[in-house]
């Protein structure tokens, strides 16, 4: 198992990003029962805003703040303009609407920022850190720290705030939640905003590593979705474990098996898990209770 730590670290960074995106999928799914296929586009918007604004010479804290607000607004607008008018439709129709939204956002981004990837400078000085014979870039460490904080924040939101509890109640039983007086419309809006903010954050912190391009969202969205399904789509812990497992599996697969089949190996393992435990590794109690 030569170089294990290096492969592991490399996978950890990608895994953190997948986990953040999976978290976004999970939040919207909990509140509305919809898989939001525009999730990857929020990641892209976060990265694009970062590249665009830092390219115009804005200071870094302002860039991060503005990009986060931009992605969140995109999420809220998506909910208000497309999901809310069709709220009586079945989840399947809503899912198809999100696919349309994804194509729209991608097209708008292409026209606004062009097709070439945009450069983003590292947020931290780029001298790599050596740790137990493995190297880790400061930007990679930043990704890990930020996603850990974001995870803790989301988890405490779900556990300790009224709105977080309402969202969990809604995930258990939508009708029951409504009977108890939970404002579903505002809850849905909140879920989209929060989910877009998390995905936008993923885009912001990964942009110095991968640059920003209008079509980066599709693949990241797909990986995040796989991670979410892997983790069971029902809990923040599930999203976290799903994301990290996928990232690390990918890195180990391309390190020890073959880089040509990297994605195939990762998705194959995902399929095996789904065959053996179709509700995901961390299925919520909901399944048993229903």
């Amino acid at each position: 198992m030569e170089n294990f730590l290096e492969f592991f670290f490399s996978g950890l960074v990608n895994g953190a990003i997948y986990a953040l995106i999976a978290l976004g999928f999970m939040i919207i799914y909990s509140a509305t029962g919809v898989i939001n296929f525009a999730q990857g586009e929020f990641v892209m918007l976060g990265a694009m805003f970062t590249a665009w604004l830092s390219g115009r010479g804005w200071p870094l804290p302002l860039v991060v703040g503005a990009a986060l607000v931009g992605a969140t607004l995109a999420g809220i607008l998506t909910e208000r303009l497309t999901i809310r008018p069709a709220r009586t439709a079945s989840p399947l129709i809503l899912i198809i609407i999100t696919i349309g939204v994804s194509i729209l956002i991608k097209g708008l981004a292409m026209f606004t920022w062009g097709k070439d990837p945009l450069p983003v400078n590292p947020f931290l000085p780029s001298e790599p850190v050596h740790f137990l014979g493995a190297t880790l870039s400061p930007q990679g460490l930043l990704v890990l720290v930020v996603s850990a904080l974001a995870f803790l924040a989301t988890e405490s939101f779900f556990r300790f705030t009224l709105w977080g509890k309402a969202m969990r109640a809604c995930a258990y039983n939508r009708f029951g939640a409504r009977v108890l007086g939970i404002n579903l419309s505002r809850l849905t809006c909140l879920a989209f905003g929060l989910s877009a903010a998390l995905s936008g954050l993923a885009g912001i912190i990964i942009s110095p590593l991968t640059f920003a391009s209008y079509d980066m969202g599709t693949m990241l969205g797909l990986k995040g979705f796989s991670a979410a399904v892997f983790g069971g789509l029902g809990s923040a812990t599930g999203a976290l474990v799903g994301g990290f497992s996928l990232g690390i599996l990918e890195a180990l697969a391309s390190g020890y098996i073959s880089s040509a089949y990297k994605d195939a190996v990762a998705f194959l393992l995902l399929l095996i898990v789904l065959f053996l435990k179709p509700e995901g590794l961390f299925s919520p109690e909901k399944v048993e209770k229903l």
Partner: protein
Amino acid sequence: MRRIWFFLLGLLLGLNTLVWAKEPYRIGAIFSVTGPTSFIGDPEKKTLEMLVEEINRAGGINGHPVEAIIYDTQGEETLAVQKFMRLVMQDRVLAIIGPSRTGTSLAVAPLAERYRVPLISCAAGIKIVEPVKPYVFKVAQSDRLAVKKIYQYLKAKGLTKVALLTVSNGFGQSGREELKRLAPRYGIEIVADELFGPKDTDMKPQLIRIRRTGAQVVICWGTNPGPAIVARNMRELGMPQKLIMSHGVASKRFIELAGKAAEGIILPAGKLIVAHELPDNDPQKPLLLSYIERYKARYGKEPSSFGGHAYDAFLLLKEALARAGADRAKIREALENIKGLKGIHGVFNMSPQDHNGLSEREAFVLVEIRGGNFHLLKD
């Protein structure tokens, strides 16, 4: 009143025929002006429009004005075929320039043969002209020439252990095939052969594997943004190996993306990006500088190497039309026998066996990235 208008109209038409005593030469062009590969087709279209206007202002070809009909393929095979048929059936053009991509070129090549219309493709894929098809030509440099240029350099430097890191799409895999096929001829041993996906965001696992093999040189074959990530990852891992890239990243955007990690990277590129640094006795230098100046004056920015392909295609066609006149079969024959034509991307020496006509001597130069810019590599 109406009569006066008719009279004036007649006078205008008459004047027109006075200026253009001869029938216009009508040529067609199909480029990916929009769509995902518009960065290729757009400069091609602009260049061709500029050249046609210039030649008509200068009196046409042997007194014949040139009329160019340009259609957009959006980089798609089906559209390329449709537009090709339209150019042949409806517009009855003498010859066709384009398409921009290898895929679209391969899609229309059999039609060029069937309808006997000379086709000058602007794409790089070697399969377009290999095996040779009588009516199909191409102007872009094949990957093989770029590979030869790199291997000649490595051989001169005595470097023999090479690791490949290629993107898993058409461009990367075509380069990979050539790199593997030509290696033995230059005494080069390929110690690693790694791939990455076009949308991959982290190539460290592949690079760690490469590091274990004791490679002296890493050759990365891809188009943005992958290669820029490779450059940054190599720096993060502190790998001392020489990094060589393909001509796929020979644009300023690559340097912007890779930042400091781009420094010291060597790559083969068309002469256009280092035109100012070429020695004065370079046969292409005056043409290159003049193209840059004219394009800049008209469109306000520097031309890309893709525009240069359209330039070369037009130069060849112009030469063939001047020799052969309005006859497709004669144009084809003339194209095949053009020798020593100085173009943007090399000196064309066509023959019945070679419908590309370029050699690695002129088609590519090695450039090094220093101080955030491309510079001619001096050995």
